[in-house]
């Protein structure tokens, strides 16, 4: 095993989550992907036959699928046989912290996760490597029929609801990484909010990779019934190694009639992690879906949260924030697909590139022929901090429905000398002035985040941008 790089190494990004703990592995498989690994996982998890078949078929799809040419670097950059596809340090997910193995608890203590519980949360989940170590929901929500389990437990305890919805929004054929996840999925959350129930305190999940050269494939399935509401929040981190890891999640969401779902992500992987995630929601009539997607870490992120408006008057929204520092490439964006009349959508994307980092906005707006009178507004703003850094925009629009209104605005800016002079002329130091301007740039998105996340993001971005303007 290679030495973890000390977190105080002179890299641009200060990454306090980059530590690594020695945690005993209970179950794991040899490196590489194979049908044997699939069988092993099905056995360990005692899964029903249909899931075993699904996994094997997905692996076949994966092996056949190509990575699209518009994702340069991912086609030959890594060897899939370098990763380990299942590593589990726990037997099962616990409802009490006391039952979580002590060394895992120590990791979560260092990350401040156990303390999260004391904050006002409707539920908390914590995944380490392949499995959920902890998953619990507040009694008051459980009594209203809200289900919040690890995805594996969802399959076991609610097999009908699970099977009816699973892999229907994102089938394995959707893309190579979705197929990979479908074959090796493990952990993630299963959320069910019954009709009319408003889950007004967030359900929160934290994903941690501890193992080296590892592939984490959590799978999340969220079903919000008619008139219900839920806010789901996820965060993540990993140690700094000198080797790569892979995180390929799939998140499927059903927003039924007049329901609303907000899904907030603060992605803060170490710069060893390839983060290749497929997130999609189906929105029924007058439902509302809001993706708040913050990408602050990873070596490479490929993620375009999607809204499929399938019912009349549905509303989809993506607020995307990406910060690409040294050694990072954030390929983020959004998809809005209008399949019904009178729907509305909004994409607001902000990216910051510094220290040679690269960010891309990739967006798709599609309006089907029968989706009349739809309205969508796209704003994407890029801030580039130095000449070494880069930002690109790849918007695609396919509008077939009548009376559609599509607005697209894109800006690219740098921290202007004029702004710097103005702020410093008031006694504010240059570094602080840069940080103010950068934080001001992302403020429209940060203000949508829960308070503690907003504070954390401002801190992280302040740190990343230190010394980045010459």
């Amino acid at each position, binding site marked *: 095993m290679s030495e973890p790089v000390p977190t105080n190494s002179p890299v641009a990004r200060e990454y306090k989550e980059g530590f690594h703990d020695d945690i005993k592995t209970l179950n794991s498989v040899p490196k590489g992907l194979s049908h044997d690994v699939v069988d092993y996982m099905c056995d360990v998890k005692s899964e029903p036959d249909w899931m075993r078949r699904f996994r094997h078929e997905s692996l076949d799809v994966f092996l056949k699928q190509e990575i699209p040419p518009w994702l340069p670097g991912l086609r030959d950059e890594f060897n899939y046989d370098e990763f380990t596809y299942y590593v589990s340090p726990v037997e099962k997910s616990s409802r009490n912290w006391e039952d979580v193995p002590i060394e895992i608890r120590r990791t979560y203590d260092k990350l401040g996760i156990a303390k999260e519980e004391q904050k006002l949360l409707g539920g908390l989940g914590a995944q380490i490597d392949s499995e959920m170590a902890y998953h619990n929901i507040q009694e008051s929500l459980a009594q209203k029929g809200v289900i919040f389990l690890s995805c594996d437990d969802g399959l076991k305890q609610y097999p009908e609801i699970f099977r009816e919805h699973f892999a229907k929004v994102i089938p394995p054929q959707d893309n190579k990484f979705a197929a990979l996840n479908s074959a090796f999925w493990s952990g993630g959350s299963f959320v069910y909010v019954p009709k009319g129930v408003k889950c007004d305190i967030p359900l929160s999940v934290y994903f941690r990779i501890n193992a080296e050269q590892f592939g984490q494939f959590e799978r999340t399935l969220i079903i919000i019934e008619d008139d219900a509401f839920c806010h789901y929040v996820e965060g993540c981190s990993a140690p700094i190694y000198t080797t790569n890891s892979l995180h390929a999640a799939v998140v499927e969401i059903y927003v039924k009639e007049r329901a609303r779902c907000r899904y907030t992500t603060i992605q803060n992987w170490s710069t060893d992690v390839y983060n290749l995630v497929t997130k999609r929601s189906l929105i029924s009539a007058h439902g509302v879906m809001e993706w708040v997607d913050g990408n602050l870490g990873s070596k490479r992120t490929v993620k375009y949260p999607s809204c499929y408006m399938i019912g009349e008057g549905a509303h989809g929204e993506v607020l995307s924030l990406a910060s690409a520092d040294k050694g990072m490439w954030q390929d983020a964006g959004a998809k809005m697909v209008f399949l019904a009349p009178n729907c509305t959508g909004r994409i607001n994307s902000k990216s910051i590139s510094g220290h040679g980092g690269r960010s891309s906005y990739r967006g798709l707006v599609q309006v089907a022929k029968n989706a009349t009178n739809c309205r969508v507004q796209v704003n994407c703003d890029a801030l580039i901090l130095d000449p070494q850094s880069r930002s690109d925009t790849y918007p695609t629009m396919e509008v077939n429905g009548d009376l559609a209104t599509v607005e697209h605005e894109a800006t690219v800016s740098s921290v*202007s*000398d*004029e*702004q710097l*002079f*103005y*702020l*410093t*002329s*008031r*006694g*504010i*130091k*240059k570094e*602080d*002035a840069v940080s*103010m*301007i950068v*934080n*001001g*740039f*992302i*403020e*429209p998105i940060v203000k949508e985040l829960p308070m503690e996340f907003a504070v954390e993001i401002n801190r992280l971005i302040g740190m990343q941008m230190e010394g980045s303007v010459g």
Partner: protein
Amino acid sequence: MNDTFEIVNLHARIEEREILRGVALTIRKGEVHAIMGPNGSGKSTLANTIMGNPKYEVTGGQILLKGENIVGMSPDERARKGLFLAFQYPCEVPGVRTANFLKLACNARAGKELDTMDFYDKLQEKMKILDIEEKFVRRYLNEGFSGGEKKRNEILQMMMLEPEFAVLDETDSGLDIDALKIVCEGVNKLRGPDIGILIITHYERMLRYIIPDYIHILVDGCLVKSGGPELAAHLEQHGYDWITKDK
């Protein structure tokens, strides 16, 4: 020494073009000076050079703040030493709330973290003097502010930062008649033995509210004439022609 701001034979250029060609001026605390001069004569260049805008290069001379030569110092250092510039064109900083910005600036000026309550008390007092609405400071810094609001915001910052020497670059332009009066009253409240003020303006009307001790005329990067407040009225009537012809 400790109560003077002195510009000695200052030369400055922007992009290879020399704009200031030997400016000399001494301001003592307690005094108000005014500089007038035709468009393009170098007034804003002087103001920016005093504050240390990196766009302008000093090619000769000195700027002495309380005896210390500040040429080469960063703008923030100058500000913390008590210098202030009210901008002719204040720039917008999206996403940064005016009040938060002011708090950080005041902390920097004080060299310590100020008590939040004290800060807000003072802010409210100054806003009242300048007839600024409460919600104004919750808005993003200068973003979407009207011309007059921006100028008022400059004076609010000056009142909060309590500089020892301040340069006001065309603070009057963009202000309506009532706003001009309010802003000038604000400046007059600050006026006193602890501050020296340099006002740059095109119009006599501002100088009718803030009567300066001296008026100087800048033409082509040189101060060509100095006099008392009566000079303003003369300029209002006769323009700059008689000076440029004199030369």
